[in-house]
């Protein structure tokens, strides 16, 4: 039984025992389950699970920050008296190769400032990204590689 599943089972047991089937209670039960797993982490091998959870959370935080930034920058572009954009599509060579990771990366890129994943090449080696400001494609590629892609590799490998 994998750990997340065990965590869920714990949550369900909690819900049943406490007699309330509300979502809040389920989430509460999940947290309690995680806590109890934390307590017994050495014996059930939960170390990886928990630290990965932490890294995923950190990815999430990064993402929310980027999202807000993205919206803000777009807002600025849009609200200037004259629209000043230099858009274009650049190719980004992918390091990640699992489908889910590619998808995650692409989605995160879409949500970051001024970039939008248009497509993945058929061989899954290249991600085509549309950027509002495409004057420095190499810089953009570097930002992605050091930002989201690295975080993803950390969280899922």
């Amino acid at each position, binding site marked *: 039984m994998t750990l997340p599943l065990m965590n869920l089972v714990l949550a369900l047991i909690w819900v049943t025992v406490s007699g309330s*089937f509300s979502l809040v209670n389920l989430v509460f039960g999940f947290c309690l389950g995680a806590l109890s797993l934390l307590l017994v982490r050495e014996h059930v091998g939960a170390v990886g699970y928990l630290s990965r959870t932490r890294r995923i959370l950190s990815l999430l935080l990064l993402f929310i920050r980027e999202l807000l930034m993205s919206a803000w920058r777009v807002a600025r572009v849009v609200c200037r008296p004259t629209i000043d954009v230099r858009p274009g599509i650049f190719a980004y060579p992918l390091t990640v190769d699992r489908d889910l990771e*590619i*998808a995650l990366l692409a989605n995160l890129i879409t949500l970051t400032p001024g970039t939008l*994943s248009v497509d993945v090449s058929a061989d*899954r080696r290249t991600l085509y990204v549309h950027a509002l400001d495409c004057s420095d494609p190499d810089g953009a590629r570097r930002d992605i590689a050091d930002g989201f892609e690295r975080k993803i590799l950390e969280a899922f490998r």
Partner: protein
Amino acid sequence: MRSVILRATAPYLTALMVLFSIFVLLRGHNEPGGGFIGGLIAASAFAIYGIACGVASVRQAMHFHPLAIAGAGLMLAVLSGCLSIPLERPFLTGLWAFPAVLGGDVGLSTPMFFDIGVYLVVVGSISAIALALEEEDS
């Protein structure tokens, strides 16, 4: 639709939506929702799944022919009405049982089965249409 991005995420989205649809279905008796809306959400989920991963995957996921599911839904709804026959109650009388295990407000009832029937009909029928149109296209 051949998109790695969609294909990788669609199963999760679909699962999430189906889960949500069941949630909407089951709480319909007390809050906005119910079988029809739940069914629509589930059908939307299957539609997205179909667009992402192909009609065949959806058919495999649903296991039964969507219309058979719809038929089963109608049958369930009608039979839940017929459950009153042995109890000498009129057709479609709401029968409730509150099994002690769960306690509280949650009960098993014929209206619930009826609503599940509605849900199945909508899921089956709308999915069938969506799949047929999708197949027609490709």
